[in-house]
Structure formats: structure tokens, C-alpha cells
């Protein structure tokens, strides 16, 4: 639930930010993510950023997929 979509933060003004996904721009509230910086990706839910996407973890997850796949190939 809770549709939340990863969008890129383009610029921040106070507690609002300009974000972008696939060429679509949307002004969102970053009241819930005061630590956000321009260039970060945030999870957008009903017009609010609810969390900053951890890009390091994202890469780790993709690496994990690769490992899982390689392991299963060895079997």
C-alpha cells in the first residue's frame, strides 16, 4: 500500500522540492525528510517525500540478485 515512487530531487526551497521522474516534474514536500540534498532520490507518497533512497543499499540489493543467480547457475 501506499504507492510510493522513487523520484529525483532537482532543487530544494525550504520544505518543498522540485522533483523529476521520467521527464515529469512535481513539486513535493520534504517536511518529512529534512536531511535530503539535491541529487538524492526520495520515495514520493501523496506529494511528500517519506524517505531518502539509500543508493548504496540499492546497489547491494542488485549485487545480491546477481550472486543469487550465479549461485543457482552453479547448482
Amino acid at each position, binding site marked *: *500500500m*501506499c*504507492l510510493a*515512487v522513487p*523520484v529525483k530531487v532537482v532543487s530544494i526551497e525550504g520544505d518543498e522540492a522540485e522533483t523529476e*521522474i*521520467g*521527464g*515529469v*516534474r*512535481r513539486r513535493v514536500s520534504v517536511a518529512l525528510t529534512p536531511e535530503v540534498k539535491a541529487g538524492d532520490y526520495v520515495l*514520493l*507518497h*501523496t506529494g511528500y517525500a517519506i524517505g531518502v533512497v539509500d543508493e548504496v543499499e540499492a546497489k547491494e540489493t542488485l549485487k545480491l540478485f546477481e550472486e543469487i543467480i550465479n549461485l543457482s547457475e552453479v547448482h
Partner: protein
Amino acid sequence: MEQAMNDTILLAHGSGGKLSHALVETKFLPLLANPLLDKLDDSAIFEANGRLSFTTDSYVVDPIFFPGGDIGKLAVCGTVNDLSMSGAKPLYLSLSVIIEEGLLIADLERIVQSIKAAADEAQVDIITGDTKVVNQGQADKLFINTSGIGIIPAGIDISGANAKAGDRVILSGTIGDHGIAIMSQREGLRFETLLESDCAPLNKLVAQMVEACPNTHCLRDPTRGGLATTLNEFAQQSNVGIVVEEDKIPVKEGVRAACELLGLDPIHVANEGKLVAIVEPDDANEVLAQMKQNCYGRDAAIIGEVTDDYPGRVIMKTRLGPSRIIDMLSGELLPRIC
């Protein structure tokens, strides 16, 4: 004696008197001029030989101006396209407007310009019309009705009931553009995008397709309810199953993004300049090639085929591999948060 033209439409503009005449004569006639319209008789008289196609549609879109078009362009293209979907060459349109008192005359002028531009591109004449004005609040700025007459060449029999197992399903281009362009303007959903409505007259595209393949089985433009609804209509009318592949359906990145944001599925979003064709397997490649030569068929693709399995249903092979049923749109297309 010249009547002064105010900045906004008044009730009197629809009452049939001097102000009405002035409105028609200054705002509509000069732009839409053609011999039949210029006569200004109660009805337009013409001859036509052959099988005729006749359609009508009313346009109540809000907002009346949107990226890529306006209600006027929509009104012409919509009716031209309905005629084209039976294989007809569109000949004449009627134009009936119901204007809410208070509409800016400048806006009306803009819309009539759009109507003219669309009619010129489609090479149709508007030969009869009507203007009414209603009290403020009784119409949402402007409602338009267009009816159209076209002529179907001999030997053409296009119908939603003609699909047969083995036929190929061809889509003329990217889906969801119009619906997303409209939504981007709606209060409460505001997001910015460079996406524009795909509103366009498809009669020339159809003429090319039908010339290359007179035996085209089905044609329809997936307007309200989107691609999914049109495919379901074909499946039900022809009592066949249709299987399409998600990967083959062209969707612009911005439409995908907007749909992700709003929780919508592009297959349910309206289009105003696309068509779905069902043709025999041996004709598919030729038809596709013809379509790609037309600017409105540039992104055309074969997206699936007709089968005897699952009669009346439409199945989509998802990006991941497994298949699922795709249904018509139920109710309004509402954005969701969950």
C-alpha cells in the same frame, strides 16, 4: 449596422437575433468558409453516391485548452476518426456549440481557429452548424457536438465483429498521451510535463492502410477507457480471444512515469490520435510498413494476435512472463494512493 462585439459571450448571442448573426458571421463563417456553409440555409444540400457512414459525438472535455490541443481540435478529430474507423473517407461535418454565458470571445476565436486547422488537415468541410448560449453554470464553458458523414469505398467491410483466430493486432503508436496530458492540467493532480495530447485526424493514415490492405478486419480508436477497453470490445464483438504482449506496447517514458505517480495503468488511459487494427497474418507486415510511413503511425507495432482460446477475453503476457487478464476500465479513471 454593426453590432459592437463585447469581450464575453452573452445570452443574446444565442437568441437568433442580430448579435447571434454577428457572432456567426464574424467568428465562424470567415474561418470555416466553404460554398455549402456560406449559403447559410437551414440545411446543407449535397449529393453522395455509395455506402455512407454517419456518426456523432459530443465533446465536454475539461479543461478546454490542454497541451497539444483544445476542445475544438478534439471535436473535429474525434468525429473524423470515428468515420475513418469504418474505412470511410470523411466528407462533411456539422458543428453545434453550446456556450456558457461569460466565455471569453477570444477563447471562442482560438477554438474556431483550431477547428479550422483540424478540418483543413483532415480535408473535411464543416457545412452546417448551430450556436446556443446558456446561463452561467448550465454548461462548463463550452460543449461541442460534431456529426459527420463519410463515404465507404466499395469492397471495404470493417467491423469489430470481423476478428478471426490468427489475425494480428496492430497499434499505431504510444498509448496514454492524451489522458495524461489532460490530467496534468487538473486541479489537485498538478504535475508538470512536456507531454502533449496525441489528438490528430487519422483519416489519411487509414486510407493508406486500407489501400494496402482492403481486407482489413477491424479498426477502432482507443479513446475513453484506453487500449484495454477497445481490445475487450473486439474480443466480445467477434467472440474471440486476444493475446497481447506488454513489452510490445509502446509507451512514452513520461506517460509511464506519470502513471507510476498516479497509480494508473497506461492501458486504461485515453488516446485521441491512435488506432488499433486487426488484420490477417499475411497482411500484417505490409500494413505496418504503410503505417510507419505516416507521421501518425511512426511508432506503430504489432502487439499481439487473435486466438480461439479464451473467447471474449483479452490476455496480456506481462513483462515478467506470466499472463494476466486485462479488463475494460470500470467507472472513472481515478488516481490512487494505495
